């Protein structure tokens, strides 16, 4: 248990890098660095730029006009998208928010509890539990999806919100991260003090531990949020009723229909554009929480 005694010299979450720029001094700007970074940014933004332009085109223009020539049909396309089967697209967006929001919130809390226990307690079986959970990090979702379906079907939960929510609530990776965060941010002395004041374990967890882990937990939340948002296989297999679909499965279905009804392509492109907007907004507003030091634990060990 070396880790819990080390004062977080390499804090995974607590470092305030706001001052870092100043610490590094105001030195001459480098043209090469600027050019390289802009090239990187251009590469990453290009498909997003394309989808933005493409969604302004009419279905015929998509394949006929120059790739980067914008057109005037954006609102028609959005109108078509929202009119598709009485606004099914909105339902998909709402479902996605439900799956990713509720799933990752619950998952974060569960991970925080487990990570805290693994970081701050000694108990028989601890090492075994931690290693098993670590092994879980490596298991591909595609492999799990089929047996998960068969097991959930045995209890009649397939094709329900639960069939996607419940498996999303467990994240070995979230537990692994929470353990690092708990070890790095919660001094044992604080726990001792709370105990001497007579606070129970749960009370201490709720009043002391959670607030201290807050910024790390936001990172865990974001991780799991993206993981659920990205997950295609699980909802694809679990859900039969398209009113329960998340956006990825819904759009992929539209793309399949595009094969025989090419007018769908422009709807798919518009849908793709609109679906990434909330995620991008979430990312930009919570960007400062993306501070993941995967090596932090190793540095200290």
């Amino acid at each position, binding site marked *: *248990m*070396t880790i*819990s005694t080390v004062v977080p010299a390499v*804090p995974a979450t607590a*470092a305030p890098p706001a001052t870092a720029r100043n610490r590094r001094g105001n*030195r*001459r*700007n*480098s043209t090469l660095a*600027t050019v*390289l*970074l*802009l090239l*990187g940014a*251009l*590469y990453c*933004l290009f*498909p*997003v730029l394309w989808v933005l332009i493409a969604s302004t085109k009419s279905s015929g223009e998509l*394949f006929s006009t120059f*790739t980067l020539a914008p057109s005037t049909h954006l609102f028609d396309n959005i109108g078509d998208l929202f009119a598709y089967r009485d606004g099914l697209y909105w339902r998909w967006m709402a479902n996605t928010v439900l799956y990713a929001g509720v799933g990752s919130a619950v998952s974060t809390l*569960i*991970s925080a*509890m*487990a990570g805290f*226990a693994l970081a*701050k*307690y*000694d108990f028989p079986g601890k090492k075994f*539990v*931690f290693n098993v959970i670590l092994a879980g990090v*490596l*298991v591909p979702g595609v492999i799990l999806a*089929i*047996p998960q379906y*068969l097991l959930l079907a045995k209890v009649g939960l397939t094709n329900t919100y639960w069939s996607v929510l419940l498996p999303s609530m*467990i994240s070995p990776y979230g*537990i692994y991260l929470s353990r690092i965060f708990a070890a790095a941010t919660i001094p*044992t002395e604080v726990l*001792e003090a709370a105990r001497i004041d007579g606070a129970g374990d*749960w009370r201490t967890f709720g009043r002391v531990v959670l607030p201290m882990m807050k910024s790390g937990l936001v990172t865990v939340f974001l991780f799991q949020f993206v993981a659920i*948002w990205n997950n*295609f296989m699980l909802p694809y297999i679990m859900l039969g009723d398209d009113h329960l679909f998340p956006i*990825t499965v819904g759009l992929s279905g539209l*793309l399949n229909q595009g094969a025989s009804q090419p007018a769908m392509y422009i709807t798919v*492109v518009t849908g793709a554009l609109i679906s*990434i907007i909330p*995620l*991008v907004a979430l*990312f*930009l507003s919570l*960007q400062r929480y*993306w*501070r993941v*030091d*995967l*090596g*932090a*634990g*190793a540095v200290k060990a």
Partner: protein
Amino acid sequence: MSALPTSSRTPRTATRRGGRAAAPYSFLAPALILFVAFLAAPIVYAGYLSLRRVKVSGLGLGAGARTEIWAGLSNYSRSLADPDFMPSVYRIGAYGLIVVPTMLGLALLMALLLDAGRTRVGTFSRTAIFLPYAVPAVISSLLWGFLYLPRVSPFTDLVQGLGFTPPDVLSGSWVLWAVANIAVWGGTGFNMIVIYTALRAIPTDLFEAARLDGASDRQIAWRIKIPIVLPSLIMTFVFSLIATLQVFAEPMTLKPLSNTISSTWTPLMKVYRDAFVRNDIYSAAATSVIIAVATFAVSFGFLKLVGNRAFNQED
């Protein structure tokens, strides 16, 4: 266990006060219950399925014609003997050789450039490069899939304008690069942020002295920064490796656009084909187990090799 007194006091106090000993278990309970229900049980179930098979009698039509029987290891031997399996493994190897170094190299370069702080476009670039991480693989493959089509791609115009015949990136050996590009696009930003975080955590005085001695940014990067963030690089390498072995959504989305991407193009696509196209979940389970074991072996083998302890902090 080399527990220090300060830390081992916690459990001792705990046990003295009755019910406290149960505290860690109650904290762990929800995670463990869910882990057993949705990870352990499915894996055990997959293991069980991999030893079973369906036996059909006669024409196989009608209710009683199908029975499930024990198959021993025959699903495993068939999976390994499948002429499509090993080529898909080699393909994944080549794909990994392209993706992992390219993605991590770019991520490291961008992170170092950002950390050096010698540009005004830092925040913008960091955000832009990170952005693709927010795009689900299905959607990013869809976007690139469109951009690869000669009729849509602006590169076609560009290459033709230069007087060359544009290659069809969705056929022949180009496909590997086309799929790799999607993975690099989607993954560079995330790895960059991980490395950047580690770089920012380096105390300034560690390289300020070197700078005063006249060391260039490049020298500082090579001699000081990179060695310090090596543990982070190792972990990003392991996670990238795992992601590579599991590549699925990208080729699956591109498949209808290309003759070259077969239904067994990657090992996980073979699992998908066996389970969902051939309706043979038993072979699929066997192949799954093989892939899972290989993933464990590769990841832990690598960590052992580099002596990394991030995954093993209890010793």
